[in-house]
C-alpha cells in the first residue's frame, strides 16, 4: 500500500496547526487540510490564551506571535438591575494574553509552512474510510491516502463521525456568542483586562466575558444550547443587549456564534481509534466553569502531543497503536486540568449561580451600605433564607469551584 503522506491533519485551527508543526519538526511528511480560505477564517474565540503550551511548541512565541495585550487585570462584576458589584485583581504577568483568532491562527499557519507542513486551504474533508491499512480521506480536491489522521476539525468532529466512532447530541454543547467592537481600551499599552460578568445574560445559564485587545474589545458569553432553545431567544439580540448593558459603544467589527463542547472529563468522546488521534475541540477538550473558557491552550497542548506520538508510531511502524496518545495525554496538563475542572464544570450546571446568587450578593451589599443592619453574615443568612437556602448550601456550591 502506498500512501500520499505520513500524516493528514484535518482542520487548521490551533489544534491542527500545533499537531502539524510538532509532527513536521519530528521529520514526518504532513499535509494539513483546512476548509477555510486561510487559518482563522472559521475560528471564533473570545480570545484569551494561556500561553504555556504555545511556548512549549514555539519557544519565542511571545516575541513573534500577534498577541494583543497581556492580561494583567482580572475583574469580576456582578450585575443585578442597576446595581453592580465589581472587584479587580491586578498583577503584572505574561501568562495569558488577549488574542484575535483571525491573526493568531494565520500566524501559526505560516509557522507551520516554515516548519515544512504542506497546508491546503479551501479544502473540505467530506468523508473518510478505512482502506488498505490506513485511512482514505475524501475532499473537494480529490482523495488522499494516509496511514494516520490527526483530527482537529473542531467541535462537531466530522472525521470521527465519518469513521462511525462518534454521534452528537445537543447536551454536549454550549453556544458561544462573540463580538469584536472597535473601541480603544483606557489602559496602558502593556496592560489588558479580562472581565467576567454575572447577571447580565438574563436567566440563561452562563456568564459573560470581556477581553481588551489593542484597539478593540472582545465581548461575549456562553449559554447552554437548551437555554437558547427553551427561552426562544436569538443570540444576536442577546449580545446586542449585553453590549449595551456593558456600556460599550463602537463599530461591531465581527459577530459570530459557535458551538463549544460541554462534556467534562467523564463525558469525553473517543480520543483515538486505530490510525486516528483526535485533538482540541473535536475531542471535547474544553474547560469552562462560568468564569473562564479555556480551549486554545488545550488544543495546542493535545495537538503537540499527537504530533510527537505520530513520530513514535512511524518509528514503531505501527499506526494502530494510537492508544499511546491517550496515555500521554493522561500524563499531561491537558487531562490533569480537564479532570480538575470536572467539579466546577458540574457547578456550572447549578442554576443558582446565574439566578440566585447575583441577586443575593447585591442585596446583601445593598443593606451593608445603607443605614440599617450591617452584620454581613446575618444579613446574608436572612437574604438566603428568602431563597430557601442556608449558608451551608452556599458554602457547598462555592466549594465546587475549589
Amino acid at each position, binding site marked *: 500500500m502506498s500512501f500520499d503522506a505520513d500524516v493528514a491533519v484535518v482542520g487548521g485551527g490551533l489544534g491542527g496547526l500545533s499537531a502539524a508543526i510538532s509532527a513536521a519538526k519530528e521529520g514526518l511528511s504532513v*499535509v494539513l487540510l483546512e476548509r477555510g480560505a486561510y487559518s482563522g477564517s472559521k475560528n471564533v474565540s473570545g480570545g484569551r490564551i494561556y500561553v504555556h503550551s504555545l511556548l512549549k511548541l514555539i519557544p519565542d512565541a511571545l516575541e513573534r506571535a500577534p498577541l494583543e495585550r497581556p492580561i494583567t487585570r482580572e475583574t469580576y462584576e456582578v450585575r443585578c438591575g442597576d446595581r453592580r458589584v465589581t472587584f479587580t485583581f491586578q498583577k503584572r504577568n505574561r501568562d495569558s494574553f488577549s488574542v484575535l483568532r483571525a491573526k493568531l491562527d*494565520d500566524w501559526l499557519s505560516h509557522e507551520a509552512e516554515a516548519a515544512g507542513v504542506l497546508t491546503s486551504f479551501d479544502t473540505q474533508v467530506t468523508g473518510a474510510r478505512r482502506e488498505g491499512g490506513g485511512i482514505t480521506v475524501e475532499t473537494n*480536491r480529490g482523495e488522499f491516502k494516509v496511514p494516520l489522521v490527526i483530527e482537529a476539525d473542531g467541535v462537531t468532529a466530522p472525521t470521527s463521525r465519518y469513521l462511525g466512532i462518534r454521534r452528537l447530541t445537543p447536551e454536549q454543547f454550549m453556544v458561544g456568542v462573540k463580538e469584536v467592537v472597535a473601541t480603544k481600551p483606557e489602559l496602558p499599552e502593556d496592560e489588558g483586562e479580562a472581565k467576567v460578568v454575572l447577571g447580565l445574560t438574563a436567566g440563561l445559564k452562563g456568564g459573560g466575558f470581556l477581553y481588551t485587545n489593542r484597539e478593540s474589545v472582545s465581548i461575549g458569553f456562553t449559554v447552554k444550547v437548551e437555554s437558547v432553545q427553551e427561552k426562544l431567544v436569538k443570540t444576536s439580540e442577546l449580545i446586542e443587549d449585553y453590549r449595551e448593558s456593558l456600556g460599550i459603544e463602537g463599530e461591531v467589527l465581527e459577530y459570530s456564534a459557535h458551538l463549544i463542547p460541554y462534556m467534562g472529563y467523564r463525558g469525553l468522546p473517543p480520543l483515538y481509534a486505530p490510525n486516528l488521534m483526535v485533538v482540541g475541540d473535536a475531542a471535547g477538550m474544553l474547560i469552562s466553569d462560568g468564569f473562564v473558557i479555556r480551549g486554545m491552550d488545550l488544543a495546542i497542548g493535545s495537538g503537540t502531543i499527537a504530533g510527537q506520538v505520530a513520530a513514535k508510531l512511524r518509528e514503531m511502524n505501527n499506526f494502530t497503536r494510537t492508544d499511546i496518545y491517550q496515555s500521554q495525554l493522561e500524563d499531561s496538563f491537558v487531562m490533569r486540568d480537564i479532570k480538575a475542572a470536572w467539579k466546577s464544570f458540574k457547578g456550572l450546571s447549578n442554576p443558582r449561580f446565574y439566578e440566585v446568587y447575583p441577586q443575593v450578593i447585591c442585596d446583601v451589599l445593598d443593606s451593608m451600605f445603607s443605614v440599617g443592619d450591617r452584620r454581613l453574615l446575618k444579613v446574608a443568612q436572612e437574604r438566603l433564607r428568602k431563597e430557601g437556602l442556608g449558608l451551608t448550601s452556599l458554602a457547598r456550591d462555592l466549594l465546587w469551584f475549589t
Partner: protein
Amino acid sequence: MLADLLIHPRLVRVEVGLNVVVGFKVVPDETLIKVSSGKLDMNVAVKISTYDKNAIEEAVRIKESTGGKAIGVTVGNTDRKTIREALSMGVDEVVAISTQYTDVLGTATAIAEEVRSMNPDLVLFGETTTDGSTSGLGPMVAEFWGVPVITFAKSIKLDGKVIRAERSLTPVVEIVETELPTVVTVTGEINSPRIPTLRQIMESSKKPVRTKEFKSSPMASLDSVEPYLVQRKRIVLEGKTEEVVQKLIEALRKEGAL
C-alpha cells in the same frame, strides 16, 4: 509511426512545445479588507490576484496542449503558499522576485529583465490586478521587450507561431492577429481556473522556486490608501407595491439616477 511521418510528412503538423511565461501578483484578499474608524486594515491573508489566475490557467492549458513549459514570475510579496498554488495549478517553476514598494514601472522592469533572459514564445498577464488596477504591466513589459501586445483577451488561439485573440471591449469584440513572441493580458471570461487536487498540491512542493531581489526607486510614490466609502441614503419607502414603485421611480428621477 516514424515511418508514417517520413512518408506523409505534410499530414502531421509537428507542434513545437511553446514556452509561456505567466506573471501573477500576490495581493491582499480584497474580500477580507475591512474599514474601521475610517482606516483600512490591509493586513489580511493574501491570494493570487483574480485575473492572474485566469492567466495561469491559460498558460497551463497552452503548455499542456503543445507540450511546452509554463514559468511563473511574481514580483513583490513572495508568499510561498500563494506561489505554491500557482505551481499546483500546473506551472513548472516560479521566479519569485522580492522588492520593497515599487510602482508598476519597476515591476515591468524586473519582469522584462527575466523575460529577456528566458526568451519565451508568449507572456501572459491578467488584465488588471485587484489591488493596483493599473492594467499597465502587460503593455510596459511588451514595450521593454520590443514585441506586440494584445490586451483584454477573452480567448486566444494558437496556430504555429500565429496568435489570434478576441479582445473584449464592451460593447464590441475585436479580433486581432499577430505573430509570436507577444504579450497578452487576459480577462476573467477566458477560462475557469482549475482547483488543484491534493495530490497536485503535494507535487507542487517539489517544483523549483527561484528567489531574487530587485531594487528600484519608484517613479511614482504611493502617498496613502484611503477607503472609498459610499454613504447610503437610507430611504425606506413603505406602502402598497404599486404605489411604492411609483414613489421609487420618482425618487430615482430626483436623484438623477434615471
